[in-house]
């Protein structure tokens, strides 16, 4: 199966192109939308086959000996060989292949991407069925699969960048899917541009790598870097490269300071939030950092920054998540926070743990998002948790699966999130990063709190939708089920209140599968005090071949400490859950009460520390002002003063010489003409205009001259 590796990204691309072309043809030429069954057969089929191929390829990879688990296939030469002068004065042949690489790291990623991607494709059939842009949605979604698979399978930085930008594009298109809404268009644009800011870092890093190593191929770069010393004391080249790479990662993976786009990205359809903005795309930054472990591990300063930014993002986003009322926004901030965890793991040098969290997070966060999508659809496009409550009754499947996801993310033992989060916490502590451990530990409590707040507000308590003054009139897009289960519940006002309903099977089945995944996925990475060797780390070992040796703070054998730490983290998770239970279930606090009792703190959290406003004021408006100013400068100074000014000077000079010309040069001419005119009064009498009189004169003249001649010649 390995030799079909190139097909894995290609299939979704073909699917996307096919759907796009069919769709455009039908809409433009025939004037009708393409057949929905055809659309989702192509889309889901392409992803399903890609998923099977991935599993086959992973299976084949696993059957190789541990040290040889790398498969590379070159499709074609992308950028042909060109001489490139390196920093040390040598000439390298700069050449980039369009090539794919399967190793344990990309195996994990393609498994997550194709498997979760497949489930979300299936889910989308139900969720998007009534949408008028059905074909467009699947074309974009398939294109995303292509880009994401290219990202994780690329064997060099530039192919990774292809995927990197490609997923950004698809994210843009899918966030802006409901493009009639200005907010959706804005959010898409914001996502793309913020990502682009990060990408500048990535591009600069690539250029640095290329002029340092003469190649962008992972294997060659890392092998060469493997011979370099760790930059413990200095801020050297590797520190520079990794910092720029990390800037790219902060954009893609929504870390401080570039996290602002992700919450807004929730404007997109919910399956998109699940696939792109939770399970796969946003983890690309983590993937990249893990991939570049050979570089990062040799730049301790960068590592410290990565860990610091990661953990700061984790707690920062968690606090914002406390009091959000939009169900998807809570999940979005939770995603930012969890991504912070992953970077924390990378920053403290345990790349495997970071990747482990990527893997488990993909399951439970996709599950949570899809569950929230189910809730939103059941609530007829209501996302405000203040208008939910008591949904347990109406949508039992959604409730059950979401509860599992929430337990997983909270870190309850036995579920996927527990293993990965615990691994990170323990490694941070065991690696001697006590402060980072403490903050991450607090974040774990926060996570449990706000996630259970979500559960309690949504599924427990009194239904609040019944007394919602206005019935759901969302008319942006008519999804499924409108108008079917309308009952007249409103006593006083006579409006129809539509009761929530459970979602169709095509949505529930992916939820159940993901819920199972959220439970069992963690068992591949059980800590070494249970399974003796950590299977996950063992599997990933070849990826870290060129990693700098980590200075060991001697924590590995202290299993008792590890168990103690585990107990602690379970305890704080439990505390968070209890707090949420106490406030939102026992005391029946409503979202509206939060504001009253917390005041300024609430405002600060709810308004996301006003970061968006600060960015707007400091950067976006200043850039626009600069643009406006430069435009004025362009018109008035360069064009006005410079070009039109010299035009004016020229014209003035022209006018001046015009005056001179008219009165002096031309005056002299006119004087001559005037004189000629006067004289002509005398002579013009001769001009009769009659031909014959002229002929007469000629005749007379001829005779006169002839006579004179005869006379003289005598």
């Amino acid at each position, binding site marked *: 199966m390995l030799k079909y590796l190139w097909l894995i990204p290609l299939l979704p691309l073909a699917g996307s192109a096919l759907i*796009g072309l069919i769709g*455009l043809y039908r*809409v*433009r030429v025939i004037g009708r939308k393409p057949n929905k069954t055809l659309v989702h057969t192509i889309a889901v089929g392409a992803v399903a086959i890609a998923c099977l191929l991935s599993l086959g390829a992973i299976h084949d990879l696993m059957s190789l000996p541990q040290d040889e688990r790398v498969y590379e296939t070159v499709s*074609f*030469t*992308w*950028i*042909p060989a*060109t*001489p*490139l*002068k*390196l920093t040390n*004065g*040598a*000439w390298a*042949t*700069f050449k980039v292949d369009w090539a794919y690489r399967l190793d344990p790291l990309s195996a994990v990623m393609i498994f997550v991407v194709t498997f979760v991607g497949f489930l979300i494709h299936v889910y989308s059939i139900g969720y998007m069925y009534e949408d008028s842009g059905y074909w467009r949605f699947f074309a974009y979604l398939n294109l995303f699969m292509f880009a994401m698979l290219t990202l994780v399978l690329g064997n060099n930085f530039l192919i990774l960048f*292809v995927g*990197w*930008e*490609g997923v950004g*594009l698809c994210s843009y298109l899918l966030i802006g899917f409901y*493009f*009639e809404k200005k907010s959706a*268009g804005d959010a*898409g*644009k914001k996502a*793309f*541009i913020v990502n*682009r800011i990060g*990408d*500048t870092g990535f591009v600069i890093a690539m*250029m640095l790598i*290329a002029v*340092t190593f*003469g*190649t962008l191929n992972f294997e060659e770069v890392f*092998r*060469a870097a493997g*011979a*370099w*010393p760790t*930059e413990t*004391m*200095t801020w*050297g*080249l*590797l520190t520079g490269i990794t910092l720029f790479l990390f800037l790219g990662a902060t954009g893609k993976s929504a870390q401080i300071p570039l996290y602002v786009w992700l919450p807004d990205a929730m404007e997109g359809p919910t399956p998109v939030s699940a696939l792109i903005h939770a399970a796969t795309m946003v983890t690309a930054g983590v993937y990249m950092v893990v991939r570049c472990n050979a570089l990062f591990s040799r730049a301790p300063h960068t590592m410290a920054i990565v860990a610091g930014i990661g953990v700061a993002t984790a707690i920062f986003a968690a606090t914002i998540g406390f009091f959000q009322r939009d169900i998807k926004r809570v999940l979005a901030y939770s995603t930012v926070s969890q991504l912070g965890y992953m970077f924390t793991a990378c920053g403290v040098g345990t790349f495997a743990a970071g990747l482990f969290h990527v893997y488990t997070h993909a399951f439970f966060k996709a599950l949570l998002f899809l569950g929230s999508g189910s809730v939103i659809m059941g609530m007829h496009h209501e996302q405000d948790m203040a208008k939910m409550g008591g949904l347990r009754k109406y949508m039992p499947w959604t409730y059950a699966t979401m509860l599992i996801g929430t337990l997983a993310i909270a870190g309850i033992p036995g579920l996927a999130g527990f293993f990965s989060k615990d691994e990170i916490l323990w490694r941070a502590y065991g690696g001697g990063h006590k402060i980072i451990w403490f903050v991450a530990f607090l974040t774990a409590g926060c996570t449990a709190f706000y996630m259970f707040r979500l559960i309690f507000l949504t599924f427990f308590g009194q239904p609040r939708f019944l007394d919602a003054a206005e019935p759901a009139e969302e008319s942006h897009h008519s999804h499924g089920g409108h108008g079917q289960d309308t009952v007249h519940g409103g006593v006083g006002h006579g409006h129809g209140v539509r009761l929530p309903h459970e979602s169709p099977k095509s949505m529930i089945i992916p939820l159940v599968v993901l819920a199972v995944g959220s439970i069992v996925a963690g068992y591949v990475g059980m800590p070494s005090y249970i399974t003796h060797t950590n299977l996950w780390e063992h599997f990933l070992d070849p990826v870290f071949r060129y990693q*700098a*040796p980590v200075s060991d703070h001697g924590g590995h054998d202290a299993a008792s400490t590890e168990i103690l730490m585990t107990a602690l983290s379970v305890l704080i998770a439990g505390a968070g859950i209890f707090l949420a239970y106490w406030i939102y279930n026992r005391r029946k606090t409503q979202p509206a009460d939060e504001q009253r009792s917390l005041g300024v703190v609430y405002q600060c959290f709810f308004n996301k520390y006003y970061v968006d406003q600060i960015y707007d004021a400091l950067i976006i408006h200043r*850039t*626009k002002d600069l*643009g406006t100013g*430069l*435009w004025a400068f*362009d018109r008035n100074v360069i*064009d006005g003063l410079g*070009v039109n000014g010299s035009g004016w000077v020229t014209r003035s000079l022209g006018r001046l010489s015009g005056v001179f010309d008219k009165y002096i040069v031309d005056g002299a001419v006119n004087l001559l003409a005037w004189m000629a005119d006067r004289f002509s009064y005398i002579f013009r009498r001769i001009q009769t205009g009659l031909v014959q009189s002229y002929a007469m004169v000629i005749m007379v003249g001829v005779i006169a001259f002839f006579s004179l001649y005869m006379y003289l010649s005598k």
Partner: protein
Amino acid sequence: MLHVMGIPILNLVCYVPLAGFFIILLLDRKSVTAIKWTANLVALLDFILSIPLILSFNNPSYTDPLTNFRYIIKVPWITSLGAQYYFGIDGISLLLIMLTTLLGFIAVLSSWTAIEHRVKEYYALLLLLQTGMLGTFMALDFFLFYVFWEIMLVPMYFLIGVWGSERRLYSAIKFFLYTLAGSVLMLLGILALYFDYGRQTGVYTFNVIELQRIGFPFGLQYWVFLAFFVGFAIKVPMFPFHTWLPDAHTDAPTAGSVILAGVLLKMGTYGFVRFGLPLLPDASRYFIGIGGKSFPWMMWLCIIGIIYGALVALMQKDWKRLVAYSSVSHLGFCMLGIFAATPVAVQGGVLQMINHGLSTGALFLLVGNVYERRHTRLISEYGGLSHIMPLYATIFLIMTLSSIGMPGLNGFIGEFMILQGTFSDPTLRIWSGVAVVGIVLGAAYMLWLFQRTMFGEVTNPKNELLDDLNFREAFCYVPLIILSFWIGLYPQTFLRYLDDPVNRVVSKVRGSDYFKLSIPVADATTSPTVAPGTVVADRPAPHR
């Protein structure tokens, strides 16, 4: 030399449009359809005739081994001046000629319904313009080059002045005078070289290859570089000589904008690659700041052009003007690559000329499509076009992405090679780093434009009944889209023509031993020495 029907191929390609020009002049002005068909067929024929240029490009019998120029035509012309009729192309001009014949055809095709009055003159001038452009790219004699360079001006002037929109006369005159001022200075530079060559060798010639053979004194190079710079920089246009461009673009008819952006601007960049840098290597190094010994004037101007153009584009209210300012930014990239004078950068710069021709040409065509329907270019007049014109929106998206350098499309290859190549020169590295900002801004203004025109509800009732692209209009984009993907995915088809000419230019500018300072790559990457640029107090032993 390759002959088609007994005529040297370059002459044929160059003068077929001229023949078309005369044929159209002979046609009755009332038989509009005949005129349109003639012009379209002639332009298509010219494109088809240019294809053999690629097919037998590497045939050694058409190649002058000494100069590596192909299909050479060299006959004495004005012997008393030493001017020759000297045509020949290398990889750089090959790509530009192909771009010209392709865009020329598309421009003619796109005008089918756009032009309603003075149809005969319009098509005649378009074809005349085509000959001028092709001749400029083929000429290897400065005198001949100058003649073609000036021939181009006149039809363009009329195209803007007669068939343009509101301020067409202002724009046309501005375009004409601006460019003429530049080209006169360029002529002075040419004459200075001509006389100095004569002084040194006793032979007077305008032959560019000959002029490249000898070195000119630095004092002369200094002034000639400035003269050439003004001439070419106006054409490019580089900051601060760019202000004719938005006006000319905005007011030109669609086909005029396409040709203007697609080909005419490339005359400037081409001038630098073909004449500026190889003829004046010392002055080039001095003004570019290669080696870090002098102030990097050119780099500053490129960077200012990139960022300034992008920022100004951001705030435009006029669709066409926005695209015009984006050209300033993109050509800043081209010039950055060309001035960086490293093999990767110059290849990228030349490729980016082609890319810009394709993507900006297409963007102007796209503006033209809606302008023809609505007769306004104000962005605020549009919105929600995705609903009404899905095909249009799709094509616009692809071209936007090509313009902002999405990997997989052409713009990325060019931009990346330019940046990477510039980066590889340690003294110019910083400029590459700064230029990256231009990419962010590029995404910002193009996506904002896309959002404002394509996204949102259809708020303007006038837009509700717009027709999507018809077959002819859509057909114009097919070659552009194909080429965009082709260059983006398999650029070596195009880059392999650039290797040799670019290396020649680079070794002219940087001296031929630039390439020789080579140590084996294996040593460079795997040696356990400390990384270049790292300052390490005591050197720890490498791990593993």
